[in-house]
């Protein structure tokens, strides 16, 4: 049985309108979130926000300098641990382990670890490092972030190195270069933009993470003089302050939200831009 053309045209039109609306909903949500964060966070940000230590609720002034520094320290340390190890694993997967048993086992594990919720990573580092040490520490927080970063870096490195044509590897080896030189000197150089982008995206992802820090770095109102103690960080501060009943703390939480969102979005957009540039070349 044929349906009349007018019905078909009408249902087509309504679906078209619906799908345009749906796309608009996605964009509107992003715009709404960003606008709120910008509007509410902007009022909290001033010179003191970056330079002063937090104050108790009700006491004017005060900032989150300790949390800013703590987040930076832990992210840098996590990157220093996570990127080399993850990238080496990516090299193995792309260069040596394409068909080996170890390769496919690791590939499966990497994908699985990418799916592990970040709070479970925090739980794992808590039982593995914090319990034996007997206290929360910034080191544990950095390790938790590194664990989160490892599979992401390994996966993107494998993908990026896999894009490099085999002829490049063969010509390097034919010239008598040892395998490590062929990989690090030739293949890495060819895949440079992709690798850098992967690292930037991984850093951006863990910098905004809260859940893995809850039971590892915890939080602290003091200056992070050593990472061997509970360490202040922006994301857990947002969580604690937002859940508090004090308006000035909530205000500070919005300021921290703006800072972390801006940081993460700028890094992500930089990475995107790099990819776009590379593609144009």
């Amino acid at each position: 049985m044929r349906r009349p053309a007018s019905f078909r045209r009408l249902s087509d039109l309504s679906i078209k309108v619906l799908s345009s609306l749906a796309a608009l909903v996605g964009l509107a949500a992003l715009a709404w979130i960003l606008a709120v964060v910008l509007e509410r966070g902007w009022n909290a940000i001033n010179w003191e926000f970056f330079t002063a230590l937090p104050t108790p609720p009700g006491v004017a002034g005060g900032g989150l300098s300790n949390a800013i520094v703590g987040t930076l320290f832990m992210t840098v340390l996590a990157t220093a641990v996570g990127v080399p190890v993850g990238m080496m694993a990516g090299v193995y997967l792309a260069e040596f382990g394409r068909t080996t048993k170890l390769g496919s086992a690791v590939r499966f594990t990497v994908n699985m670890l990418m799916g592990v919720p970040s709070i479970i990573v925090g739980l794992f580092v808590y039982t593995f490092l914090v319990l034996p040490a007997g206290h929360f520490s910034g080191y544990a927080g950095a390790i938790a972030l590194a664990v989160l970063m490892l599979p992401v870096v390994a996966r993107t490195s494998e993908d990026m190195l896999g894009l490099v044509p085999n002829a490049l590897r063969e010509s390097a080896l034919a010239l008598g270069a040892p395998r490590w030189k062929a990989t690090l000197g030739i293949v890495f150089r060819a895949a440079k933009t992709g690798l850098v982008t992967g690292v930037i995206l991984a850093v951006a992802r863990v910098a905004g993470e809260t859940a893995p820090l809850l039971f590892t770095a915890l939080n602290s109102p003091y200056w992070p003089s050593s990472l061997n103690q509970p360490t202040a960080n922006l994301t857990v501060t947002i969580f604690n302050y937002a859940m508090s009943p004090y308006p000035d703390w909530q205000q500070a939480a919005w300021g921290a939200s703006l800072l972390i969102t801006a940081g993460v979005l700028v890094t992500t957009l930089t990475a995107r831009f790099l990819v776009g540039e590379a593609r144009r070349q």
Partner: protein
Amino acid sequence: MFRGATALCAALFLVLALAFLEELVRNSSLSLGQFGAGFLTSRAWNPVTGEFGAARRVFGTVVPTAIAMLLAVTLRVVIALFLVELAPPILARVVGGGIELLAAVPSIIFGMWGLFVFAPFMAKHVQPALGDTLGFLPLFQGPPMGIGILTAGMILALMILPFVSAVMRDVFSMVPPIVKEAGFGMGSTTWEVTRKVTVRYGIRGVVGACFLGLGRAVGETMAVTFVIGNDHAISASLFSPGNSIASALANEFTEASEPLYLSALVELGLVLFGLTFLIQVLAQLWLRALRKQTGGGL
């Protein structure tokens, strides 16, 4: 040498995965021994009397996830249709890029926005409207508090939208143009081609994409913790507050002083770990089968 060093780093991942399992099992052994398999079905959660069960938290994890999947997948299929079939390329790039940018927003920001902006909005406009029109269903009864299972599910839907998105767009553009053109050539409308050709061609890929989004949603912590309301009840109403496994961990872990309490919380973590592992395995097997069938490209 070089090969050995890289293999070592690669093998580290296997060690890491085993260590995850070992640590979680070892630290929940107390609770595992005490409650056995009954842990999964018991509704009890009483730190004072030392009775613990996962049922309420599993409920609080599964229901918002189901809402999120339902919303995100529907929305996503329609958006993918817009991006691939309807929008001019420049607009498609802007809209697609914007939606993928949602993935870069840290989950705690979704939580802040959810608690301070979206939950009041739900309480004022959406929930009363739902209650008025669909209030005869037990799903939409109860006081409109804003926070609760429905709000958590909707925010989760927004969060996983971009994750489902990337794969879905690939799936939609993977359909050979000639098949679609054949459809158009027969005089079909855009919607008919999408429904009868594109979706049918890409349905397996869509399912794979859903699995990946599902894995995300199940373990999401911060956004859910902010808005789910942290109540242990199991209620038919979607307006009522609940508690997911992840939000229970985030809220209670640092307060747990009793060894058994701590052990029960770690066991909750083990349940969540098992859940995400299962989803990952299913997704991977599915995608692998798909790849074999279509000969790459995804």
